[in-house]
């Protein structure tokens, strides 16, 4: 295997299964020592089990690197601190941090409980902050660091889990801002936006729906083909994260990459694409606003994602 990360030490959260596991193993294959963090809970965040983290530790060790497990809760500041310190104390320093841990509790907004909101935002967004916050002082001191966060296309909206989407958007902003704050110290902060088959995404019903739509001619067959190529084990693209963690990626900072088995894409930042100037010296008036809010001006190429349903006949 490769040696692009030889002598580097990494902390990977959510490393017991899925994308986190694939990345932990990919880093180990490239020679990095790994702190394998996983609480071992269910997709909805309930429960706990040491087995997933322990198994990945064994798997990493097979590649001739050192590996240890951490079973804490990423949403707890002290647990994150302990995991980062475990890396520094056992391996000497922390070079790489991959924040992958995540859960999902899907509900429509009008049915979502406070707890469902708190838990999902706590694990994803606060969890990512907790690890970045605790790793940053070490990385600044040593003038080297690689942070890789995990966002999702849900960051730009969608339905049924706006807790998840909002947390992912927060992580995206944290990636952009973290890159600006930490870049001068030789630290890069990037994010992956993955598509893969994991216990969170593996849903045969989704494929059935796409098959039906393709059969009815409502969807291009390439959609299904892409889906089948992409809904595979995340080990297919885990080396993308390994590259971002390497010395060779020093120039890549503050970027978000769509990562799949067949595609890498770089996301732009949101941007102001149309603009209306206030024609007067005074405040905007309702009429001035209304006049600008048209397809000819501000709403160029805009499509309402969910127009009102027509009244039932």
């Amino acid at each position, binding site marked *: 295997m490769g040696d692009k990360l030889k002598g580097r030490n990494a902390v990977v959260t959510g490393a017991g299964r899925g994308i986190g596991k694939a990345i932990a193993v990919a880093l180990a294959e490239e020679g990095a020592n790994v702190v394998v963090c996983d609480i071992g809970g269910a997709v909805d965040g309930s429960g706990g089990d040491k087995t997933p983290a322990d198994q990945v530790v064994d798997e990493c060790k097979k590649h001739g690197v050192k590996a240890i497990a951490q079973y804490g809760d990423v949403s707890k500041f002290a647990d994150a601190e302990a995991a980062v310190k475990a890396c520094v104390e056992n391996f000497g320093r922390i070079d790489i941090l991959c924040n992958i841990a995540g859960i999902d509790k899907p509900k429509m907004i*009008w049915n979502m409980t406070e707890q469902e*909101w*708190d838990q999902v*935002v706590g694990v994803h*967004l606060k969890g990512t*902050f*907790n690890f970045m*916050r605790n790793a940053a002082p070490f990385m600044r001191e040593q003038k080297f660091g690689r942070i890789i966060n995990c966002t999702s296309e849900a960051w*730009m*909206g*969608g*339905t049924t889990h*706006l807790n998840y*989407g*909002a*947390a*992912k*958007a*927060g992580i*995206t*902003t*944290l990636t952009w*801002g973290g*890159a*600006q*704050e*930490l*870049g*001068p110290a030789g630290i890069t902060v990037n994010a992956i936006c993955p598509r893969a088959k994991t216990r969170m995404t593996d849903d045969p019903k989704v494929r059935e729906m796409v098959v039906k739509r393709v059969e009815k001619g409502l969807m291009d067959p390439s959609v299904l083909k892409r889906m089948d*190529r992409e809904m595979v084990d995340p080990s*297919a693209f885990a*080396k*993308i994260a390994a*590259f971002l963690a390497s010395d060779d*990626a020093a*120039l*890549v900072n503050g*970027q978000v990459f*769509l990562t799949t088995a067949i*595609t*890498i*894409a*770089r996301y732009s*930042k*949101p941007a102001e694409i149309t*603009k*209306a*100037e*206030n024609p007067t010296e005074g*405040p905007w008036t*309702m009429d001035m*606003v209304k006049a600008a*809010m048209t397809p000819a001006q*501000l709403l*160029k190429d*805009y499509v*309402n*994602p*969910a127009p*009102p349903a027509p009244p039932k006949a």
Partner: protein
Amino acid sequence: MADRLKGRNAVVTGAGSGIGKAVSLSLAREGANVVCCDLGGGIDGKGASTTPADQTVSECKALGVQAVAAYGSVADFKAAEAMIKTCVEKFGRIDILVNVAGIDRAKMLWNLSEEDWDVVISVHLKGTFNTIRHAAPFMREQKYGRIVNTISEAWVGTVGHCNYGAAKGGIASLTYATAWEMGKYGVTCNAICPRAATRMTMGPDVLAGYKKRVESGLWTKERYDEVTHVAGPDYLAAIPTYLASEAAGHVNGCIFGSAGAFFSFWAPARESAIYNRDWDNFGPWTVDDVEKCMPNLLKGYVNPAPPEKEDKKK
């Protein structure tokens, strides 16, 4: 006075000062009844006072509409519920929700305390969730609603308060998702990304900070003038007010840069460079594969913060 919101009932958070106050008065000017929500705390979220909310209530009433105050913290799920219920119980229903309440605790990531993170995320992001969550069932039932959130240019990354930026990024996503989920029920959800002179952006401490940047050579005088030449929030209040009107039914899931001199449409992030492999012939990516396609992917990219040169360091 006008009547484009006559008979409509609104809840505005952060209504005691700044943008929230300007929007409350603008809604009232168009005939809407307003629940003016404000904890009356400092910019950092500390302290509380009933005076700011009460003052906005008086000013709204002077415009001939009904207005009541709510003094709870938007970060508190139950207090947010009470704000929405106050509107329904006092005015009959809730048509408009404008989320403006916000605080700031600025620190670099490596100095940011857990508490500073939690408080800022709670007020902005959870606060916005809390009010939308409680308003949604009413709006869905009546098949009408207008939700306007407040984000910030910090949502695309910011130096010195990543807590604030992350919360604003979360609110942007919440805006998109709420638009998707609620749109078919006749509810719109949009956000403004304001630039206005408020105590948060132009208070004495902030101005002193800007002046220091000029003195230290970090900023030019021109940059200082550009940043400080900003109109008050009453200049942009018509933008969220328009979004709260029936006429804006076709606008859903949008983010508008909003200032006195301009307003703009923010497009979400998009895949700006794509590298596709041969779909029928590939194995797992290797590090070398990834490295090879990076030059194409990074075309036009500028490192936002390259490492400092050794010789520049003391």
